[in-house]
């Protein structure tokens, strides 16, 4: 008989717990958090841009609301999130295609997962470093006084 109810009993708590699986779990967690953050920004951006259709005054009123230090800080966060999400997403596409996972081997104590090798770990670090660099560049544009 087919079982329809397969509830994940840990729910949100299980999803957010980065403790048990090391770096891969942190990457998993950040990929989803940045994804949700970017989706929220995307919907907000589509709404914000629609003020254009109400003319010059509505557009400028929206700019007064968003082109503030707080608005620029949010944009910086979006730049960091989008860079990490893109770089880590490309790593995940390769990983899901079986690239960079290493060869399967006999499980010997202390049972380090072969799949989480230096390529995967460095991929996560590269994504984090690229996000930091993009945020620094974004800060120079947004707060550079141009």
């Amino acid at each position, binding site marked *: 008989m087919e079982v*329809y*109810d*397969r*509830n*994940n009993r840990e*729910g*949100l708590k299980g*999803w957010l717990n980065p403790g048990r699986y090391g770096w891969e779990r942190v990457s998993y967690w950040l990929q*989803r958090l940045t*994804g*949700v953050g*970017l*989706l929220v920004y*995307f*919907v907000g951006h*589509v*709404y914000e*841009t*629609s003020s*254009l*259709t109400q*003319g*010059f005054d509505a*557009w*400028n009123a929206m*700019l007064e609301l968003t*082109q503030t230090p707080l608005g620029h800080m949010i944009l910086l966060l979006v730049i960091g999130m*989008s860079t990490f999400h*893109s770089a880590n*997403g*490309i790593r995940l*596409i390769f990983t*899901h295609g079986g690239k960079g996972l290493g060869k399967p081997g006999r499980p010997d104590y202390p049972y380090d997962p072969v799949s989480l090798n230096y390529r995967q770990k460095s991929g996560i670090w590269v994504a984090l470093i690229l996000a930091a660099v993009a945020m620094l560049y974004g800060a120079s*544009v*947004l707060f550079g006084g*141009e």
Partner: protein
Amino acid sequence: MLRESQIMKIHYMTGIAALFVVAVHILMRLVMPFNLSLEFDNVILNYHNLPYAVLLESILVLIAIHGFNGLRVILLEMRQSRGWENFVTVVTIVAMMGVIAYGTRTIIVANGLSLG
């Protein structure tokens, strides 16, 4: 009905395609000082440029598909049952279509606007 593996291929393809079109969209904000690029006349001129308007529409569609499918995947990871899966799928598809329709309306109206 699409298989989950086919949906994930669409997810990856829309993600990679979005990278390129969003890069062009950001570059358009950097070809002149950032504040100037956001002035009403400059933004309207962007929308009058047909290739750029098509690019904006493609960004809208690609990110809406990628984003709302990503949300669907996250929600399905948290809980699994036939009712929940159907509910999440319907809600994300409706939200995706709503955002695409609303954004498309902006692009079409702004394309026909005169300068301020």
